[in-house]
């Protein structure tokens, strides 16, 4: 009897655990649809929903989404790329009437995910959410041998708050031009904290090769580590996302010399752009949705239409304002391809000195 009981327990445990087991695969449906542990029910619900709302989907043109859409996010949970992708998926879920399931596949600045899914299913239910700096930057630095043209670009649906060149508030320079002059006066002594291989690395290479700056380039890791290094005095200047540095700028510990966006964010209009000093120094990091190469153009168009629609609401505007100090920025398929080509051409022009 006892043995039977024990076996039953094991069986029950296994089932329970198997249910848990599906979770760490980071497969969570967009937050709106998910209450804590309802991962399995979502799939079932999706079918009934799909049946009920085919009409809504019909508006999206020739292509009808009638089963679960998978979105693979190239960066980790908690970061800006993840947040934007999940907010978009949540809105799309309501618009399309089918489940939109997000999974993070991270590593190598997004290259792992893009490599894994660039030749993924072309049935119109597989999408990749990434940012343009990762897409074009990884190609320019030679980390991967493919660019945006290895995918079917679907949409650009947002723009980041941007990287800022940041120095301690008591530093003797107030503009990018001052800083560059200071490095020339004292070659190799002003330390610029960078993270080799990423956008900040590209920025440093442009500063050196096109701006004539003579920094001592110090690897200081990701955004948080670069902040530590700057506060701890290990480096004299570094590049940080505005949101990371905002508090320190406000309380007078740090100051921002310029933004690397081509144009300052809508809600932070006073910042000068780096391109005023060095025209080529532009890193417009945008959030993009891609589909595997060969995906049905009708599906791409339908998805783009849906994205255009859900990002035109006041709610979406508020989210962009709050999170990235930006107004909504969304492009149709053709403009998306044109923008990606622009960014790629710019980054490729840096290739000789990367």
């Amino acid at each position, binding site marked *: 009897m006892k043995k039977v009981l*024990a076996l039953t*327990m*094991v069986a029950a*445990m*296994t089932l329970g*655990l*198997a249910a*848990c*087991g*599906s*979770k*760490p*695969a*980071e497969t*969570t449906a*967009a*937050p*709106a649809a*998910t209450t*804590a542990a309802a991962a399995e029910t979502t799939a079932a619900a999706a079918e009934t929903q799909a049946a009920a709302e085919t009409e809504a989907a019909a508006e999206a043109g020739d292509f009808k989404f009638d089963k679960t859409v998978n979105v693979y996010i190239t960066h*980790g*949970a*908690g970061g800006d790329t993840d*947040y934007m992708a*999940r*907010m978009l998926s*949540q809105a799309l879920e309501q618009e399309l009437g089918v489940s939109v399931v*997000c*999974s*993070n*596949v*991270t*590593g*190598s600045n997004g*290259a*792992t995910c893009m*490599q894994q899914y660039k030749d993924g299913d072309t049935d119109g239910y597989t999408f990749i959410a990434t940012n343009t700096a990762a897409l074009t930057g990884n190609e320019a630095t030679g*980390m991967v041998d493919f660019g945006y043209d290895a995918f079917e670009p679907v949409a650009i649906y947002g723009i980041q708050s941007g990287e800022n060149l940041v120095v301690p508030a008591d530093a003797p320079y107030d503009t990018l031009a001052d800083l560059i002059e200071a490095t020339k006066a004292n070659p190799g*002594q002003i*330390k610029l904290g960078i993270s*080799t*291989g990423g956008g900040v690395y590209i920025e440093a290479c442009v500063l050196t090769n096109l701006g004539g700056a003579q920094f*001592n*380039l*110090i*690897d200081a890791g990701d955004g*948080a*580590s670069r*902040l*530590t*290094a700057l506060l*701890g005095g*290990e480096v004299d200047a570094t590049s940080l996302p505005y*949101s990371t540095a905002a*508090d*320190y700028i406000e*309380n007078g*510990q740090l100051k921002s010399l310029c933004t690397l966006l081509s144009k300052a964010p809508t809600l932070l209009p006073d910042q000068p752009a780096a391109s005023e000093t060095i025209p080529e120094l532009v890193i417009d990091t945008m959030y993009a949705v891609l589909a595997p190469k060969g995906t049905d153009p009708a599906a791409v168009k339908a998805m783009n239409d849906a994205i255009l629609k859900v990002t035109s609401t006041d709610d979406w505007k508020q989210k962009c304002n*709050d*999170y990235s100090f930006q107004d909504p920025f969304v492009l149709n398929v053709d403009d998306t391809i044109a923008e990606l080509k622009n960014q790629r051409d710019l980054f490729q022009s840096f290739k000789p000195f990367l």
Partner: protein
Amino acid sequence: MLLEGLMAVMQPVTIFLIAVGVAVGIIFGSIPGLTATMAIVMFLPATYSMSASQGISMLMALYIGGISGGLISAILLNIPGTPSSVATCFDGKPMADKGEAGKALGTGVVFSFIGTLIGIAILIVLTPVLCDFALKFQAYEYCALAIFSLSMVIALTGHDMPKGLISAVLGALLATAGLAPIDSKPRFTFGLFQMNNGFALLVLLIGLFAISEVMAYAESVRKDQGFTIESNAKIKGAGFSLKEGIAQIPNAIVSSLIGVGIGILPGIGGGVSCMISYTVSKNTSKHPQLYGTGIMDGVVASESANNATIGGAMIPLLALGIPGDACTAMLLGGLQVHNVAPGPLIYEKNGAVVYAIFFAMIVSAIFMMLFMLLGMRFFIAVLKVPKNYLLPIVLVLCGIGAIGNANMVFDTYVMVGFGLMSYLMIKSKIPTVPMILGFILGPTFETNLRRVSQLASSDPFYHHPIFCVLMIATILVVIFSVRSNLKEAKRAEAEELAAEAAASAAAKTE
């Protein structure tokens, strides 16, 4: 603001979310292959649509539950549920083998609770002071800290030092696979893009501890010794007497302080803190020879340290906006999506949320102790499940965990590979624990050494007092450990010679 924070947590919904979070955290923590980090990853998106204090309360509950749950499988199965409970196996398993599983679990749970509270207390009181300390740790200091911590390997391995070093160096070498730090040059990837990220700590951990445990068990299957371990299922209270508990308090305080200290330093984490405090506890104990034989001291040292690390890791996260490990990195994201920006102004801008976090941590710690003490009976029942049913289940879960870590099936092959390696290591009596230390600290050392080499031209080492102190301390630790090891070896040799001489003398007289 204090009241506002308290109010935010003391709502039924928030309390419920905390209870769910702790329970899920404990489950994730206790299952080898699933970790606190995964629990947070999974639930983070769900918190996007909650209020700031609800969301962060739930994440804190998952974090505390996840780190605490690891002790269950460490004690009962000798497989650490999370990297943070590696050192709990050392004494927890022998205790369980002696039939004291209940006592070991009770000790682990209560001292996890105490460790968490000490961590929270330090977080609340000393944050401003300790922030400056965290900022002083830069490339030079990390470099020295990594070497210093690695020198602990000698103490961890006892008298067979060469084998300990082999293990640690192998660990550090394994960590070099993948894209190199700083210049992102692929190393040992054999053209496989799956290898670009290198080996994951989790996969190595499963391979080293879970797979090898299953294989070692498979060996003993034919020797019929009964498939279950009997244990004193009748547990009163926490399984140990008040007197025994009080005697452990100094040990718990020292270990918690070590845990907090390591927590404050970004990038080191609970896996290292439990091992270091175990070593320190052993070396400062009056009865170091008993460590590893199944005494409370070892469990106390490991479990209070890893839980105190939570409070420590929250210090730089809240006050500087700098996450110390994968878990806190996700907490940072969880705060930012609610427009709570951790940093020097967090008290002024979002004081209520900060206090809500403190209260949520305290409530989570209480739930954690409650759930685990109540659940102890059931956990021990796991030991009654015949191992030939239990271990295959564990194995499957490990595989799921390995896949879930990065959504790659490739990692299960790696897991099996590490399992085979680990089995061979155990067969040749090479300890596996130093390998984990080497694996974690090797990259810290390499990255910072390379940064130091960039810095050296404009910032020489003698400007860094902490670096100098740590290096001198390392040299002293090595000299003393080697000397005491040599002495021990000599004594053993002398005893052997004496015994031989006596034997031959006895033979002659005959």
